[in-house]
């Protein structure tokens, strides 16, 4: 029982998802936002249950709760909350408000919560599948749209391939060590090399290939360059609330699991290979993501490429996992803070794109001309999110980038320089939208925008988060730093 108590939030969310499925079956298809509010309520209840469980290990070490997992669970729940809240115009288009859509979002969130709470490779794999399989379905949810079906199919095939690569890597680690528990596995690798901190040549080679497999598998899930080719098509084709969920929650889950795995692996992996491999991926993601984003004319595609670039920034925090600032490890804390900033800014930016599409029926950047004159509120909120994504103070995005660069500077200053330079490029395409909204005149007068109430909740909360955490970042970064004391548990 004590074991199950630790799992309470996951169980509540799972039960809520099942309940919404049942309720959707018995309920008549009446429209309105009832199901949206139900989904939001379920997420909020789950969020409140998280602090009640406490910390600990359960089920023989396959499940545990530590501060890092609690933090990331909150991020995933936040993303699910905002994604559900911005779904009303999608449901209108589908002419259906059955529960399956929300059940899938909630179950994917459950998968992410399991994913961040484990240290064992089989559980990690099952949880990862539980996270991505609902997302395949959600990406193809607009069955009337060919683009959406294409997105779902592409995501499914590449997801399956990347899972196969990941599994191959996992099987090699098991073959080398005889255990699937991450800490034990890497501990045994160290023992095999007779207590030396570098591995013997033989173990090293198979181990490095296993690690490359894992990096490639996670690289696909995170859409890192050069494994990113699927991302823009999927992000553009999927329904927009799903895209926002994909870009924040699934990326967060991938980064968190990746960091958890590799933090244990680091001592036996050797600093050299590690830094070169992941650092190169980070630099490629930042450069290619940002430069390609400049060329886009569609808001969703632009945000897709910018999210590839953001994954690159996250990786800077990630290569500097063992870096310490004032004797406290700072890499993980900077990743956690970056995810928080990215949650508010990116969910908000997508919500703005949804609001714009609902009123003016377009995702093209050129159609944003003169928006500030007709709906100043929408233009202002969108501006706030874009500036936060670009990293302009006092928005939270500024501190996120600052902490990431601070963590990376001691050992990876070349990466930080690449990061700063590409941030400047990113400012160009973010500011381009702001310019379209404020300074370009439109001949045809846009109608005044109307919002539905769940979308307003999303926009208000994300704006509040973006500004408040930008003004008071200390409490979060302090929590993140303390969380790290017990990071690998």
């Amino acid at each position, binding site marked *: 029982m004590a074991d199950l108590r630790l799992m309470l939030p996951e169980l509540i969310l799972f039960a809520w998802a099942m309940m919404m499925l049942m309720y959707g079956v018995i309920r008549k298809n009446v429209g309105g936002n009832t199901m949206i509010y139900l989904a939001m309520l379920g997420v909020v209840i789950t969020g409140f249950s998280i602090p009640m469980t406490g910390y600990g290990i359960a089920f023989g070490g396959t499940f545990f709760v530590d501060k890092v997992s609690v933090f990331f669970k909150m991020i995933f729940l936040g993303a699910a909350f905002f994604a559900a809240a911005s779904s009303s115009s999608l449901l209108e288009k589908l002419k259906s408000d059955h529960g399956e859509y929300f*059940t899938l979002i909630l179950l994917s969130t459950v998968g992410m919560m399991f994913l961040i709470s484990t240290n064992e490779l089989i559980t990690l794999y*099952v*949880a990862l599948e539980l996270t991505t*399989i609902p997302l395949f379905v959600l990406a193809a949810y607009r069955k009337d749209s060919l683009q959406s079906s294409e997105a779902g199919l592409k995501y499914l095939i590449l997801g399956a391939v990347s899972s196969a690569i990941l599994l191959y890597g996992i099987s*090699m680690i098991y073959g080398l060590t005889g255990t699937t528990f991450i800490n034990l596995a890497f501990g045994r690798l160290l023992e095999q090399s007779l207590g030396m901190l570098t591995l013997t040549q033989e173990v090293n080679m198979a181990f490095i*290939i296993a690690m490359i497999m894992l990096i490639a598998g996670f690289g696909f899930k995170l859409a890192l360059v050069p494994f990113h080719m699927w991302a823009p098509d999927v992000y553009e084709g999927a329904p927009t609330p799903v895209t926002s969920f994909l870009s924040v929650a699934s990326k967060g889950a991938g980064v968190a699991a990746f960091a958890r795995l590799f933090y244990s692996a680091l001592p036996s992996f050797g600093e050299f290979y590690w830094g070169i491999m992941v650092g190169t991926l980070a630099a490629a993601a930042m450069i290619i993501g940002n430069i390609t984003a400049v060329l886009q004319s569609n808001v969703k595609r632009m945000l897709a490429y910018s999210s590839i670039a953001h994954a690159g920034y996250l990786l800077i925090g990630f290569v500097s996992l063992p870096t310490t600032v004032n004797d406290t490890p700072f890499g993980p804390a900077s990743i956690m803070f970056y995810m928080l900033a990215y949650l508010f800014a990116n969910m908000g930016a997508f919500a703005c794109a949804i609001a714009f599409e609902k009123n003016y029926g377009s995702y093209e950047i050129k159609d944003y001309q003169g928006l500030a004159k007709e709906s100043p509120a929408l233009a202002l909120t969108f501006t706030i999110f874009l500036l936060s994504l670009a990293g302009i103070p006092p928005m939270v995005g500024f501190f996120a980038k600052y902490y990431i660069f601070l963590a990376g500077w001691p050992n990876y200053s070349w990466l930080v320089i690449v990061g700063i330079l590409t941030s400047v490029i990113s400012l160009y395409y973010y500011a381009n939208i702001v310019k379209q909204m404020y300074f370009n005149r439109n001949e045809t007068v846009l109608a005044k925008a109307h919002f539905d109430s769940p979308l307003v909740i999303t926009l208000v909360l994300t704006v509040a988060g973006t500004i408040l955490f930008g003004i008071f970042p200390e409490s979060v970064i302090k929590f993140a730093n303390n969380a790290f004391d017990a990071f690998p548990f």
Partner: protein
Amino acid sequence: MELAIFLMASALSIAASILVIIQRNPIASVMYLLTSFVSQVILFIMLNAAFLAMLQIIVYAGAILVLFLFVIMLLNLRREDFGKDIKLKFKPLAIAFAVVLLFETTVAISSSAMLERAQAQLPPEFGSVQAVGMELFTKYLYPFELTSILLIVAVLGAVVMAKKRL
């Protein structure tokens, strides 16, 4: 003797797997897939993994491939639907990468500690139904239960995708 059986079974498995992907007729593909699975069963038996071998026959060869055949029959494909070979732009590059990867993994595995572990003496009950069951329902109980949620998601997703109007 053992080596001869191993070589035959693995060569058959590799050849059948290649045939699966270069066949244009889906029925023939499924049949080659079956051949590949059966030759893998021989490998599993040689590795003392009796339970896995049974599962492979019952679940994969028995249930899943029959489902494949049913789906292909329902699609009612004709010979002209099979289509032409797809021209892949990066085919030479992909083949080169695959060969390099094959070479690397061969070298890495053949020189690693995995071989020593493989040559170690196994406990007598290794691979039996009881041994697998004990592992599955004690140490791996939680991921095992987690797969039930995964199955719900898969069923739900399939229904959502297949049904015209929900």
